[in-house]
C-alpha cells in the first residue's frame, strides 16, 4: 500500500513527488510514457512567467508568482538549467501601451516583484534590435527561462534519491475508491494507495472522471515553434512578448537556456491528445509573425528544428489544484500556462496538504540536493581539466554540436530516473539538441545505450514503445 500515488510524470507530477519525498510517506509516480516529461512539459515556451498575466485572485495568479520565486532555489538544489531573464511585453501604439499599463497594475495586484514600464529610450537600450516603432514595454525582471523537462526529471530523481518510486510505461485505466483508500489500475498492474494525485495534464479530466462526476473538460491545444541556431543568440536579449491584438496573441521570441532562440507558438485546438505534429499553416504563421518586434526580420533560415507541443486548456479557465470533493483524491488539473512557472509552488502546496491530511512528519534525513550534473560545455577551463583527469570519458565528445561527452551520457543513464532511450539522453544531457540534430551522434548514443543497458542495438528506442531506431542486423 502506497501512501500517495501521483498520476502523471510531467513537471507538476514530478515536483509534487519531490516535495512529498521530504515527508515520511511512501510515494510512487505512474507515467504512461516510457520517460518522464513526455507531454506538455516536453514542448512549450520554457518560460518562467513573472505572474502579471493571470487574473488576480485566481489559482494561476497565486501559484505563478510563488512558483517563479521558488525557481531560484529549487533550480540550485536540483541542478537543472534556469536563468533569471526579464520578460518584456512590447507595445507599438497607444492602445497597446494601455494594455501594458493594465498588465503592470495586474502584476502589482498579484504581488509580482520588480515590475516597471520602460519608455522607448530604455526599451532600445535593453533591446538594441527592437523596431523603431516600438513605444515601450512592460519589464518583468522576476521572470526566467528554464529547461522544463530538466526541471521535471531532476525533481523525480531527487524524489527517488529520497525513497520515492517511479513506474514508467503504464497507463492508468481505472481508479476505484475502496474503503479508506484507492485501487489504481493500469494497463499492466494494480496498485493500492491511501491517496491519489491527479497530475495527468491533457488527461486530467479523464482521470478526474474515473472517481467523480464530470466537472470540467480539457481541450488539447497545439502550439508550434521554431528553434534557431545559436548563431542567432544576441539578436534578442530578453523574452519578448507582443501585446495581444485582434489577430491573436502574437508569437514570442526568447533566448533559451541552451543558447538558441525559441520562436512561437501558434495555437490550435486539436482532437488527438497524444499526437504532436506541426503543419504548414502553423509554421507559416510563426514565420510570418516572428520578430515583428524587431528592426530586421529574424533569420528564420537558421532554424535547426520545428516542433509542436500540446497544452491542456481547462473549461474552467483556471487551474484546479488541491483537494477534491472526495477525501484522499487530490488534483493539479487543467494546469496550462503558467503551469511551468507554477510547478514548484503547486508541488510544494500539494505535498504540504497531503502530509497534513495524512498526519505525516518531515523526514529528518531528507536531502534536497541532487548530485550535481557535470555539463562539460558549461565548465571553466580548470574544471574541464579536473573532470577529464578524473574520468577520461569527459574528453570523449559524443555530440559535437553541443559538446556533450560520453561520461555525461553514461551518468545520465545510471542515475535514478535515468535515460533509457535516445530521446531520454537528449533530454538529460542535450546530445542531439544542436544544429545537426543527432545526425553525427545518434549512432554513438545508440551504441552507448545498448552497452550500458545491456541490450542489443536494435532494441534501443528513440522514445516510446515501438520507436526502435534500428530494425535488424544487415548480416
Amino acid at each position, binding site marked *: 500500500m502506497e501512501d500517495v500515488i501521483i498520476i502523471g510524470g510531467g513537471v507538476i507530477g514530478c515536483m509534487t513527488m519531490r516535495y512529498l519525498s521530504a515527508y515520511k510517506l511512501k510515494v510512487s509516480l505512474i507515467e504512461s510514457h516510457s520517460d518522464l516529461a513526455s507531454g506538455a512539459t516536453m514542448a512549450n515556451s520554457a518560460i518562467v512567467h513573472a505572474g502579471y498575466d493571470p487574473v488576480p485572485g485566481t489559482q494561476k495568479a497565486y501559484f505563478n508568482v510563488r512558483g517563479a520565486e521558488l525557481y531560484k532555489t529549487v533550480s540550485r538544489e536540483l541542478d537543472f538549467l534556469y536563468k533569471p531573464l526579464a520578460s518584456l511585453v512590447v507595445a507599438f501604439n497607444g492602445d497597446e501601451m494601455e494594455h501594458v499599463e493594465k498588465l503592470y497594475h495586474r502584476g502589482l495586484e498579484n504581488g509580482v516583484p520588480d515590475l516597471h514600464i520602460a519608455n522607448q529610450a530604455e526599451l532600445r537600450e535593453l533591446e538594441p534590435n527592437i523596431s523603431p516603432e516600438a513605444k515601450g514595454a512592460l519589464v518583468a525582471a522576476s521572470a526566467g527561462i528554464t529547461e522544463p523537462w530538466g526541471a521535471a526529471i531532476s525533481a523525480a530523481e531527487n524524489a527517488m534519491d529520497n525513497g520515492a518510486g517511479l513506474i514508467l510505461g503504464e497507463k492508468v485505466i481505472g481508479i476505484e475508491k475502496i474503503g479508506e483508500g484507492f485501487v489504481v489500475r493500469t494497463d499492466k498492474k494494480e496498485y493500492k494507495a491511501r491517496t491519489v494525485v491527479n497530475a495527468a495534464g491533457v488527461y486530467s479530466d479523464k482521470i478526474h472522471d474515473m472517481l467523480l462526476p464530470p466537472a470540467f473538460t480539457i481541450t488539447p491545444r497545439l502550439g508550434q515553434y521554431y528553434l534557431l541556431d545559436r548563431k542567432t543568440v544576441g539578436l534578442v536579449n530578453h523574452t519578448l512578448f507582443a501585446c495581444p491584438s485582434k489577430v491573436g496573441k502574437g508569437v514570442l521570441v526568447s533566448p533559451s537556456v541552451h543558447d538558441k532562440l525559441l520562436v512561437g507558438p501558434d495555437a490550435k485546438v486539436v482532437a488527438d491528445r497524444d499526437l504532436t505534429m506541426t503543419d504548414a499553416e502553423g509554421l507559416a504563421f510563426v514565420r510570418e509573425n516572428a520578430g515583428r518586434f524587431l528592426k530586421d526580420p529574424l533569420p528564420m533560415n537558421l532554424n535547426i528544428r*520545428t516542433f509542436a507541443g500540446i497544452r491542456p486548456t481547462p473549461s474552467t479557465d483556471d487551474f484546479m489544484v488541491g483537494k477534491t470533493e472526495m477525501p484522499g483524491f487530490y488534483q493539479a488539473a487543467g494546469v496550462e500556462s503558467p503551469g511551468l512557472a507554477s510547478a514548484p509552488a503547486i508541488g510544494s502546496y500539494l505535498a504540504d496538504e497531503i502530509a497534513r491530511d495524512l498526519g505525516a512528519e518531515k523526514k529528518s534525513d531528507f536531502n534536497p540536493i541532487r548530485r550535481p550534473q557535470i555539463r562539460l560545455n558549461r565548465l571553466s*577551463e580548470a574544471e574541464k581539466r579536473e573532470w577529464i583527469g578524473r574520468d577520461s*570519458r569527459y*574528453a*570523449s565528445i559524443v555530440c559535437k554540436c553541443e559538446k556533450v561527452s560520453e561520461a555525461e551520457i553514461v551518468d545520465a543513464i545510471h542515475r535514478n530516473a535515468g535515460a533509457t532511450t535516445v530521446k531520454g539522453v537528449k533530454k538529460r544531457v542535450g546530445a542531439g539538441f544542436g*544544429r545537426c*540534430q543527432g545526425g553525427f551522434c545518434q549512432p554513438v548514443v545508440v551504441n552507448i545505450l545498448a552497452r550500458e543497458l545491456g541490450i542489443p542495438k536494435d532494441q534501443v528506442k528513440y522514445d516510446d514503445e515501438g520507436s526502435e531506431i534500428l530494425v535488424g*542486423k544487415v548480416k
Partner: protein
Amino acid sequence: MVKNPELLIVGGGSAGMAAALSARKSGIQDILILETDPYLGGVLRQCIHTGFGLQTFGEDLTGPEYAGRYQDMMEEEKIPYLLNTPVLEILPDLTVLAISRTEGYLELHPKAIVAATGCRERSAGTIAIPGTRPAGVLTAGTAQRYINIEGYHAGREVVILGSGDIGLIMARRLTLEGAHVKCVAELMPKSGGLTRNIVQCLEDFDIPLLLSTTVAEIHGKERVTGVTLAPVDENLKPILEKSWYVACDTLLLSVGLVPETELFSAAGAEIERGNGLKVDEKLMTSIPGLFGCGNVVKVHDLVDRVSRQGELAGRYAAEYILGGK
C-alpha cells in the same frame, strides 16, 4: 605531453591529410592533426562505394581505399595526429583549445592553422517538414553509417527525399541489402546527383525518381508509418490537392550539405555567402594564419578536388610560416 606544433590542422579527413602532406613537402616539420573521431579519413570510412580517386590516383577507389592510401602516406611521412581530440575553441590569436582522450586538456599556440572540418548534412529539423517527429526519419549519411559501419538496417520500406549523390548511393546500398526503396523525391526539376549515380543507383533497380516533388507531411506516432508526397509549384510550394500517401517506415533525407564552419566563425573568421569559410586566393581566411580547405570552404562534388585544395592550403600555410609573418 603535446608540444606546440608550428602548423595545426583541424580535421583528419581528406582535406586535412592532404594539407598535412603538402605542408611537410613544403618544408614544415612540426605538424599536428587534431581529429574528433577515433579514426582518420572522416566520412570516407563509411563511403564504401567506388567513384573516388579517378583524378588523384587514376583509379576507381572506394572511400576507405582512398582514405587508406592517404593514411599510408601519412605513416610514411610520420605526420603526427591525435584521434578522439575535438577542438573546443579557437581564439583570434590562433590559440587552440582542445580535449583529447589520451592527452587531456590541450592549449596550443601554432603559427598557422588549417581548417579542414568538412561539412554536415542538413537535418530534418532544418527543412521543417510538417507532421510528427517519430523514429525513422534520418539523414542518408546517418543511415549509411548504420548499415556500413554498425551493420544495422535503419528501415525496411524507405522513401528518400533529395536526389543528392548520398541519397542515390544509399538507394542502391539499401536495395542490395534487402530494403525496399519506394521512390526518391526531388524538390527541384532536375537531380543534383551525378548521371552515373542516377543510372547505376536508381535506373538499375527500377527505383522511381520523382522530380518537382516533396514530402508534404510525415505520419506516424512512434515510428514513421508513411509520408504525404506532393508535386511542387514554381515557388517550390507543395500542391496539396495533388498530393498522395506512401506507406513507409523510413524517410531518408539527402537534402544538402552545410560547411562545418562554426568553430572558425566563432573565432571571427568571415563566412562566404554560400555558407562556407571565406578565403582569399591563398586560401587564407579573414584571420591571418588561419587557412581553409575542402568542404568547410565549399561543398565539393569530388573528394579529389577536396584533396587538391587541401594540398594548396598546406603549401600556402607552409609559405606563411616560413615567410615568418
